[in-house]
């Protein structure tokens, strides 16, 4: 991968505090999800496909391999290839239920 014009120390100097804050937001969000009571009849944190994908994505951040952003985005993506019959809504959720289904089949986290 091409390098930015500034060296590694300069990158850390420039971005560390900002991303330290983002990391704390992430930690706080996970704590908040765990502290919250499950909705009656709703998905638990463990079975909510969005949360499931989120936790899987965090593992990518520390796996030591490059192109983390691309791989996180792919993890959050609909893995199917054919058009759907009808749009069920206009918006998007940020993750796809098939991620959870596929993970269950392969025994993933």
């Amino acid at each position, binding site marked *: *991968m091409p390098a930015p014009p500034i060296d590694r120390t300069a990158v850390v100097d420039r971005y560390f505090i900002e991303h330290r804050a983002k990391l704390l937001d992430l930690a706080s969000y996970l704590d908040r999800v765990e502290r919250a009571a499950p909705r009656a009849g709703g998905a638990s944190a463990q079975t909510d496909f969005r949360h499931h994908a989120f936790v899987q994505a965090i593992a990518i951040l520390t796996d030591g391999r490059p192109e983390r952003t691309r791989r996180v985005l792919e993890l959050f993506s609909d893995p199917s290839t054919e058009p759907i019959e009808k749009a069920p*809504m206009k918006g998007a959720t940020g993750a796809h239920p098939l991620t959870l289904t596929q993970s269950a089949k392969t025994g993933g986290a």
Partner: protein
Amino acid sequence: MTYIDPHIHMVSRTTDDYERMRIAGCVAITEPAFWAGYDRSSPQGFYDYFRLLTEMEPKRAATYGIRHHTWLCINPKEAEDPVFAREVIKLIPQFLERENVLGIGEIGLNKNSRNELTILHEHLELAAQHNLMVLVHTPHLEDKLKGTRLILDAIESHSSLDPGRVLIDHVEEHTVKLVLDRGFWAGMTLYPDTKCTPQRAADIIENFHGERLWINSAGDWGHSDPLAVPKCQIELRGRGHHEDLIRKISFDNPVTFLSQSGKFRVS
């Protein structure tokens, strides 16, 4: 440094935003037709919208020395009803000769449905018939990767459309290579939450050397920033990038791509 915002929805922004953009260096914009946040109740609603894009907005922009251009279509969020969508598509040709109309856009997919794909093909056919340039919206979030693949296949099935005259917008790290490798131009949208931040866009520019790439704010009625392009310029400058690269991404590349229309002008 002067810049072009090649994708922004000024009908949703205030006149104060035009002023701020001009102060920040904006000299030209292009405004694709899009979803208003609600479904129009009739095709006539689009007729009025197209008049707004071709009559009112150019005047408002010109007040601040900004040249306004537009792209026309029915957006994919309102394409689930093909009968309605076809009525809107029939309205487009009468606007194509207007001075600021560059082509068809932003067409594409939203939820990757069969009806959306049908209407995408019909827009592409219209572009091919009139030898028009095309600006393409790729879907949001989890739908983007699949939708981008479907869109690229759809465009390539229209053999008369030159990929060099089609820009695929809202690319991110998982779609940019796919788009560029197939000969298309790619746009990065700088959104606070749901697309690229200025920092991530700068990373992509570093990784792909800025070839056939541009940046835009896609500022609209939602959470967005009409000054996102100059903020990305600041990000690149802060990393020590040469002014030539910054100008290439935020001015030269848009000029190169858009000038193929024969109608793009910088004030």
